[in-house]
């Protein structure tokens, strides 16, 4: 029983054809105003995405409105469909906008501090990744324990540890939990225990 979508009430007459009874000129000023708005590109296009708050573990729903041109979030509000918060937010949730890049304290660049130096220097990702891989491999291989004193096969390293985090997504947690174990790390923990 498909209800005719288009033109249910448009019993006749083409859509949007302004010509015919222009005699009344009712829409003249409206059309002018519409053109003026479009020309001065006053019409801002945006997208809306649903996400979840990153403070306590209630899991309140949020809707982020993103300006299509600048690609920046300009408004975050409660998600009315989410049955937990039904559109409302607590004080921290309401201030969630301050976690976006609008907060100037957000980290934006890869930073490195050389041994004994007293300042951060900016680096690029490739350099940092290679350096980190080198350090990790050397530290792991140097004290790698294949068998413990009792001669049992253990294949582990106690010289590299991993902390973090219960503030990241499930997929990222699984990726970390699995990849650090493949390297043989045993000192693995995060805030769930704190």
């Amino acid at each position: 029983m498909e209800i005719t979508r288009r033109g249910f009430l448009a019993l006749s007459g083409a859509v949007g054809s302004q010509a015919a009874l222009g005699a009344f000129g009712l829409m003249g000023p409206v059309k002018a105003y519409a053109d003026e708005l479009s020309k001065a590109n006053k019409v801002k296009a945006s997208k809306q995405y649903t996400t979840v708050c990153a403070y306590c573990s209630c899991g309140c729903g949020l809707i982020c409105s993103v300006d299509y041109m600048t690609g920046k979030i300009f408004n975050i509000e409660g998600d009315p469909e989410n049955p937990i918060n039904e559109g409302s937010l607590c004080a921290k949730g309401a201030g969630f906008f301050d976690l976006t890049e609008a907060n100037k304290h957000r980290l934006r660049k890869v930073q490195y501090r050389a041994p004994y130096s007293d300042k951060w220097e900016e680096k690029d990702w490739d350099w940092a990744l290679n350096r980190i891989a080198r350090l990790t491999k050397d530290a792991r291989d140097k004290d790698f324990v294949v068998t413990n004193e009792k001669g049992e096969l253990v294949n582990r390293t106690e010289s590299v540890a991993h902390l973090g985090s219960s503030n990241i997504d499930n997929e990222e947690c699984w990726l970390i939990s699995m990849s650090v174990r493949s390297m043989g790390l045993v000192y693995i923990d995060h805030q769930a225990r704190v």
Partner: protein
Amino acid sequence: MKDIEDILQKLERLAARAMERNPHSAGVVSAFRPLIMARARLVDSLDLAGRGEFTLDENLFRQGIPVARQNAWFREDDPFAPVALSLISPLKTGFPDLNSTWERFTGLIDGKKIVLPDFFRSYPAGGDDLLASWAQLLEADVRIPAFLASSVARVILERRALDWAGLVQDFEWEKGYCPLCGSPPNISRHLEGTGQRWLHCPQCNHEWRFRRVVCPCCENDDQKTMSYFTIDEKEQESAFGCEMCKSYLVTVLKVSGTAEFDPDIAALSLSHIDIIMQEKGYLPMVQPEWSTFA
């Protein structure tokens, strides 16, 4: 129900504010104001027969069959003619240029040349040929009789919808078209605070709640393919656009539940958004009221 005096005053206030806020559409709003007031007065005073005889099949409703589809839209003894006639005077004040047409229309009804029940018997299926013949009688564009018929339908269905609304109160309705009469929405508003999205039906003036990031027309829920257009410095005026079915819906943002709001007046005063969106290539979900007199 608030008494009719309060409603009329509210409409008066809203129309005045709309005209002050959007001067460019003041003409449209003031043209339609008498009609809107008349419709409100009629709905309040109309006493339709057969009020209690509506049935509602719950799981049909749950599958998305609106109430009107499960019952007869109109009854033979619905007061089509009196309603039509009482709409003529506001139309005269609103659209003086068409006075001759309105006169002729009154004459034709009195003279039984235009028999309204014929049209409403097969509603909403075609009635195009009937309308074409009325248009010849009226010597006017076919959209005039179409507009008259839809206004009459609006008054009667709005009165009937008040009874139907009671029937469906406690059922979930997840569809994008009106749970009572099945018409797509002409305007929607987002409640301030909770952000709930309420769609308005132009045919029976019923408002129902719908999910936020989903298209009412094709129920597409891929958030990447839906866009929202807002007008700078007028953060309440916006439109929802769906890239899948290329349809749009004028949306008034951040309106508080307790505030005074009339969807019809809002739709008229935001007609510039209709034009902007149609120029961007989107299609309206339903024919805007003002398009008859564009």
